[in-house]
């Protein structure tokens, strides 16, 4: 069966029926084949929104493409991952299951996996950085750069490659007995390229220093923060979106945060903040009391406020839950420096803050 004997449209239809992973491995067969795939699959590749370098076990990684699909019953959207290749580093490939490929000019060993449906790259630890760079360059050349490439790290010891078009997600989830070494973590953050997201469980730790790169992450999701850490985060965060789960927070801290935002001195990039308060804390205040401040403005209760929602920067897949949860609130505050509005919602102990692109005048025009 000689594929090249088929007319172009038949070849294209066959390629259309193939999975991304199979197209990826097919592209290594020849330069002409790679060119055919790239030219016939432009639309498909442009529709890929993210390629992830997932942390698997230890230093091992799986490169995959998240995609939205339906659950078995067909009733709900779910997110699945299409695995493309494994990057398993320090492993030995036997002659039987091993093959070599020229990946962006570097010869890399691959082996067929018993565990996964895709091959794994094997290389000497000393070659790790250059092998990962070659692999990443091949991905960029093959799939293009219209999608986000995300490197996901789980431990401060993880290798973080400094490569073009590569963002970083950090998820640190220590077990109950583990105490996080803040200094080590600070060093780790400082060594990283652009921090796209940090997701952390911070039960027992003290706050990061005000200069920490931690606060520069574009999005942050924090679990179980102690009051001091929440205070520091609200004070020093320079990113765009933050969600704080089950946190201890004081009313004064929230008021200080709102005042700082209103002044325009800080938090200029902030788009969305959600704080889910700990339900078991000895609270002497009710979160909705914050709405009684005289600088919090109110839309008449008979009118319908506009609904706030922005692109969710930390969605597991951009097609899957692409936006932040909508905020429908009659209360808002206005920033002094540019008159931009932020809706505030306090419901069932959750404090949600969403910044509009509109000024107060434009915002009020959207009220029905």
């Amino acid at each position, binding site marked *: 069966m*000689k594929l090249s004997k088929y007319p172009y449209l038949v070849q294209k239809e066959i390629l259309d029926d193939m999975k991304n992973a199979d197209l990826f491995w097919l592209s290594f067969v020849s330069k002409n084949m790679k060119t055919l795939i790239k030219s016939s699959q432009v639309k498909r590749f442009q529709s890929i929104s993210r390629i992830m370098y997932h942390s698997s076990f230890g230093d091992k990684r799986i490169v995959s493409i998240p995609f939205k699909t339906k659950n078995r019953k067909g009733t709900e959207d779910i997110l699945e991952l299409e695995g493309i290749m494994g990057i398993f580093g320090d492993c030995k490939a036997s002659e039987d299951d091993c093959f070599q490929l020229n990946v962006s000019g570097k010869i890399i060993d691959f082996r067929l996996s018993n565990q996964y449906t895709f091959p794994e790259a094997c290389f000497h630890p000393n070659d790790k950085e250059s092998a990962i760079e070659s692999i990443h360059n091949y991905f960029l050349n093959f799939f293009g750069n219209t999608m986000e490439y995300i490197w996901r790290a789980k431990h401060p010891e993880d290798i973080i490659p400094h490569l073009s078009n590569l963002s970083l997600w950090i998820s640190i989830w220590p077990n109950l007995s583990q105490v996080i070494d803040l200094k080590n973590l600070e060093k780790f953050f400082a060594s990283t390229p652009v921090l796209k997201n940090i997701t952390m469980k911070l039960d027992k730790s003290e706050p990061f220093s005000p200069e920490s790169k931690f606060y520069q992450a574009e999005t942050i999701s924090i679990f179980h923060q102690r009051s001091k850490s929440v205070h520091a985060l609200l004070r020093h965060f320079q990113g765009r979106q933050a969600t704080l789960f089950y946190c201890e927070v004081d009313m004064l801290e929230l008021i200080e945060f709102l005042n700082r935002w209103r002044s325009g001195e800080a938090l200029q990039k902030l788009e969305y903040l959600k704080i889910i308060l700990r339900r078991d804390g000895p609270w002497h205040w009710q979160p909705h009391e914050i709405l009684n401040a005289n600088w919090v403005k109110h839309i008449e209760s008979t009118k319908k406020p506009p609904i706030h929602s922005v692109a969710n920067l930390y969605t597991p897949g951009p097609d899957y839950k692409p936006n932040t949860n909508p905020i429908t609130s009659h209360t808002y505050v206005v920033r002094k420096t540019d008159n931009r509005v932020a809706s505030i919602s306090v419901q069932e102990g959750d404090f949600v803050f969403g910044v509009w692109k509109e000024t107060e005048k434009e915002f009020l025009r959207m009220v029905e």
Partner: protein
Amino acid sequence: MSSTEQGTSSAAPAEPTTAPESAAAPEVPESFYYVHGKDKVVHKVSAGALQHSALIHGMISNLGYTEEQAKANPFPFENIDGDILQMVVDWCNQHKGKPTPPEDTNLPKQKEKLFDLVLAVNYLEIKELLTYCCKQVAMMVKGKSPEEIREIWMIPTDAEDEAAEKEAKKRAGKEAAGETAAAAGDAK
């Protein structure tokens, strides 16, 4: 239609009293056409089954052949092997007037047969069958290494592609030189 119109129509034949309320329309006799492949074995196929093939459907739609004329003029498909044409005819008969299922598991498993079937189906423009065939061809390389894929689909290496390209250029150059020489000869 009102009952008066029906009752007073003098041209209408008297309806039998036992006729069912909604009598089925009289069946139009199905027309048949004939095709043969490389082996000259002629297959009789109904026009309904041949509708799957855009190529044949376009050919027969305005012919208005009688049964005899159709029999005397089978469509020759000399580029299609007899057994492949038989497969195509069987498929068209099986799926005559039926919605096509999302998958077809009756396609040939041998890669050479499947390869020929794809070429025939593409030539005859049978869209649904082409879709099934292409899916089957794509499945052949699922989870395979690049070298395994190269073997299955007989994909040339870069060196082979380069050599073929050089050869094609050489041939084109020779042909161009030949044409120039011929043109010069004509001018003399």
